[in-house]
């Protein structure tokens, strides 16, 4: 696959070239210096799941490029009355130029892209992918490290339920990083190593963190646990990032979290606010990366 993707459904189908193109484009973007690239274009933000940062980030990104946005929530409108995704998509298609969709069911953006002729941007689907998050994570890492190639990136926590973990793993491995997953069996099944080439599972967090360049902490998605039993005290003891554990990683290792972060759960206050944490940079970079995504997918397309 060459050239610009028509839709952004996930990181898995992208080539490393396409990923690098997105990241290069993001470097030129700045929400404080609005552009007119997408003037007159309409972008629907179709959110079937609650989200603050992703929706706001896409909205600011779209407006910084001169596009207008229309936000549709699942709790509003015809969706609540039982309209199918297909019909909602067909209705929107006649009035907007692209759809950014967040959906609780994995594969929903894929379904939309199969039905519609306008570009679809996946803003997170179920447990599947969250490509814009992975791009902003990579962008943030690259502001501190020269390259992803050869980096040891450790993702800790609830990998099973995490679309961020899946998108990150695809992206990091495509760009040559070594990915290690760390978490308990119920949140990290053995199949996870087959997601992308070279993924390792290390169950012991101290061992996993040793020599890490990047530590990506994930939230325990209690709303998705559906019957899985985990003991939170035990979880904190085994998988919380605390100052002692940060020292096991490399001296200049980055501490990341895709948010929303539960302080005192995934990491302690000291670590979240510490010098190695880039959590807030991730948020700002999110807008830049999403500007690049929208500009790349919609720019020049009439």
């Amino acid at each position: 696959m060459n050239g610009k993707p028509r839709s952004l459904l996930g990181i898995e189908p992208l080539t490393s070239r396409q990923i690098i193109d997105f990241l290069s484009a993001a470097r030129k973007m700045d929400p404080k210096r609005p552009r007119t690239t997408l003037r007159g274009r309409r972008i629907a933000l179709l959110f079937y799941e609650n989200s603050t940062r992703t929706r706001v980030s896409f909205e600011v990104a779209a407006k910084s490029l001169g596009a207008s946005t229309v936000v549709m929530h699942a709790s509003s409108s015809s969706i609540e009355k039982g309209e199918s995704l297909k019909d909602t998509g067909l209705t929107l298609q006649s009035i907007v130029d692209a759809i950014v969709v967040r959906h609780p069911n994995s594969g929903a953006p894929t379904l939309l892209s199969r039905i519609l002729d306008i570009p679809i941007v996946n803003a997170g689907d179920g447990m599947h992918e969250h490509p814009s998050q992975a791009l902003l994570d990579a962008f943030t890492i690259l502001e501190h490290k020269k390259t992803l190639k050869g980096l040891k990136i450790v993702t800790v926590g609830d990998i099973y339920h995490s679309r961020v973990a899946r998108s990150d793993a695809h992206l990091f491995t495509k760009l040559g990083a070594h990915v290690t997953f760390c978490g308990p069996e119920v949140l990290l099944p053995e199949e996870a190593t087959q997601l992308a080439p070279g993924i390792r599972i290390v169950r012991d967090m101290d061992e996993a963190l040793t020599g890490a360049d990047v530590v990506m902490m994930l939230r325990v998605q209690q709303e998705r646990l559906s019957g899985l039993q985990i003991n939170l005290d035990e979880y904190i003891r085994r998988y919380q990032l605390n100052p002692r554990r940060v020292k096991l990683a490399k001296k200049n290792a980055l501490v990341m979290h895709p948010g929303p972060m539960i302080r005192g759960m995934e990491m302690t206050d000291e670590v979240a606010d510490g010098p190695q944490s880039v959590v807030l940079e991730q948020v700002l970079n999110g807008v830049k990366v999403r500007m690049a995504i929208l500009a790349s997918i919609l720019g020049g397309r009439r």
Partner: protein
Amino acid sequence: MNSLLIRGGHLVDPAQNIDEPRDILIVDGRVAEVGAPGKLQSADKVVNALGLIVAPGLIDLHVHLREPGQTHKETIATGTAAAAAGGFTSVCAMPNTKPVNDSPAITRWMQDPERGAVVNVFPIAAATAGSAGEKLSDFAALCRAGAVAVSDDGKPILDDALMHEALATAARLGIPVIQHAEDTRLTASAPMHLGVTSFRLGLRGQPAEAEWKIVERDIRLAEMAGAQLHVAHISTREGLALVREAKQRGLKVSAEACPHYFLFTDENCADYDTRYKMNPPLRTAADRDALLHGLVDGTLDIIASDHAPHAKFEKFVEFDRAAFGITGLEIVVGATLTHLHRARKVPLKRIIELLSTNPARIVHLEGRGTLAPGAHADVTVLDPKKRWIYDLSKTLSKSRNAPYGGMEFYGKVMKTIVAGNIVFEA
């Protein structure tokens, strides 16, 4: 007197141990005579079967005709028309209709000529009231009304004591209990097999043990009750191994394969293609290969379609929300002949056992599954080599939820004859 002579064909009738050229004379809906080529008297009508295989009518032990109650998916008339096109002269209709077929009244209603069935319909009645898994239905009354087996298909009979009671009651009546083996406590909101593909797609998965643990328990309960157990649509290699072992111990256990489980794997669900969403789910390549082996070595007794029609609006949705099931009546013969006979050299005798002799034996259909004199004149005429391409747009089913469109098969149904009447001709 109404007579039909099927002339020049090669008869494969495992029940009579015949696998050679034979003519068949049918009089008034029954087989009158089976004789060497050219030796029988002529009849009102003659079917030329030169170069073709003549087999006892094929029997599909597992179809969902959706009537009563879900006629937007299928009706008894359309489903049996598809069955005839697929070479089936009899189908056994699962009870998960609306309402559930748990009563003699519905069982009789389904067999009423008013329904317009093109082939024989043998209802399988619900094992528990409303298939709710709480209290047994009245097996004896259902049998008197024409039910040939009981099952809560679509769901398992989960409770140990209730399953034991179902088996014991069925044993007294001489009918099998057909189990949909799924421990639903392990499969909640899981639309596919638990494995590498489900992890990659971010979909919840059904573990293989959800099937085989129920198979294991059912075999144990069937042994205790001295009952006949039929395991529907088996999908895991572990489940298959349990059946093999039970048979070696001489238990009355039979098992069913469906084409999709020996043609596809969970990797077909990649890209969220809901045409490959069914229950049990498609498993791994190792499971698929084990099933093919089980078809060759005799562990699997029959091939059924598990024809499960759904409307487009029920399938063309998010993978999690799509209905489980695939249509298949029209491709069972093509898929079986292509993948077992042509590719794996399974003899036609074994193919006909899988599609006619054994299904008749399992649900005790007297005078079917054979063309011995006196048997019902249900006949399927096949060309075992003919190449054809399945045109899904021309299906006789009301639904098109199958991935077989455009697929190439070797081996085609040429004629389907029910009670001496030709109901389908290619």
